[in-house]
């Protein structure tokens, strides 16, 4: 799998974005862009040739779930692999995210191994 994949990491906390960016870097993915909520992320996704979206759920402006729905509703982005990385852990929320079309769901606090495992899984299956 190509390591040149272009990631967009969406989280309202800059520390979390940095942590994810560092972990992606350690996994060999160095092409990572950041956005601080769905409202800023969506136009970036629509304009910018991204290969993979990692998003938080609870953010001011546009929450991650709405972002995912908007991505899935956009014909050009509908097939983009999406990983939700969030502290939201209610059963009905996880089901709702699955129905909205996430490819993976990781709850915070998370480990580097979990992130790697989900990325590998999604990249091995997504878009096929």
């Amino acid at each position: 799998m190509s390591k040149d994949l272009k990631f967009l990491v969406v989280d309202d906390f800059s520390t979390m974005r940095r942590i994810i960016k560092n972990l992606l870097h350690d996994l060999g993915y160095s092409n990572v862009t950041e956005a601080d909520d769905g409202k800023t992320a969506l136009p970036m996704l629509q304009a910018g040739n991204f290969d993979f979206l990692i998003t938080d759920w609870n953010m001011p402006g546009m929450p991650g779930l709405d972002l995912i729905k908007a991505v899935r509703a956009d014909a050009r982005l509908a097939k983009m692999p999406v990983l939700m990385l969030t502290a939201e852990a209610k059963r009905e929320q996880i089901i709702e995210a699955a129905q909205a079309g996430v490819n993976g769901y990781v709850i915070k606090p998370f480990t580097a191994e979990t992130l790697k495992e989900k990325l590998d899984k999604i990249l091995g299956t997504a878009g096929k």
Partner: protein
Amino acid sequence: MSNFSILQREYGACLESMTEAFQRDDEAAFFTAVDHIVHMREPKMLGEIRKLTGDLQKALERFSIESRLADIAEREIPNARARLTHVINMTDEAAHRTLDLVERSGPLAERTAREANVLLESLEAFRARPAPTAGFEGVARSVEAFLPVVRSLEAFLPSARSDCEQIRRNLADVLLAQGYQDLTGQIIRSVIKLVEELERTLGDLTALSGGAVEHATLGESNSSGFGPVVPGVTQGEVASAQTDVDALLSGLGM
């Protein structure tokens, strides 16, 4: 029956005996009748006075509760907000400081590992050289073959020392950056105290109002999220570990 006819019935007999005693010049009977009337009025008056003082007391209590509430609303809530914002800033700063140090240490450790690897490779190349011949010439050839190892060692040791020293200093700074926990903990505790007081004061106010308070439920929406799970607070079925999420999703066919 009209109000006045009640009065006539209650006081009529008494007034009659008063008038009679008055006309008879019977002082003792007259005052007995007066005492009787006063006695009839007393419980009502006392009741009124009791009610009035009760109302006054309630009004005073309400006033003191409300002025405390006003004080909390005007001064302490904005204060608490500023304190909590400060907590966010402090944790943000500490996290970024730690991330800075980690990001600076990573490449140093990587470089040490990389150079150690170069050294190992040159050692292996030395070991794998053809068996040395006997005599001075053989020794000279071995020494010559060992020179690249020495050069690698000379390059490696000073940079390994300075890199490790720097990593050690960075780790000490990471340790210090954790000091935020103490400070933010104290600030959060003071805000918890305020919330407790607010809870008590609002409870007192509710009790004064006779407890007739409608319980409004906070509207929570799935779409914007509930925030992190808080043990003992978050309601409903919650995934406590990644394995729970994975099991749920695989049950859904993901």
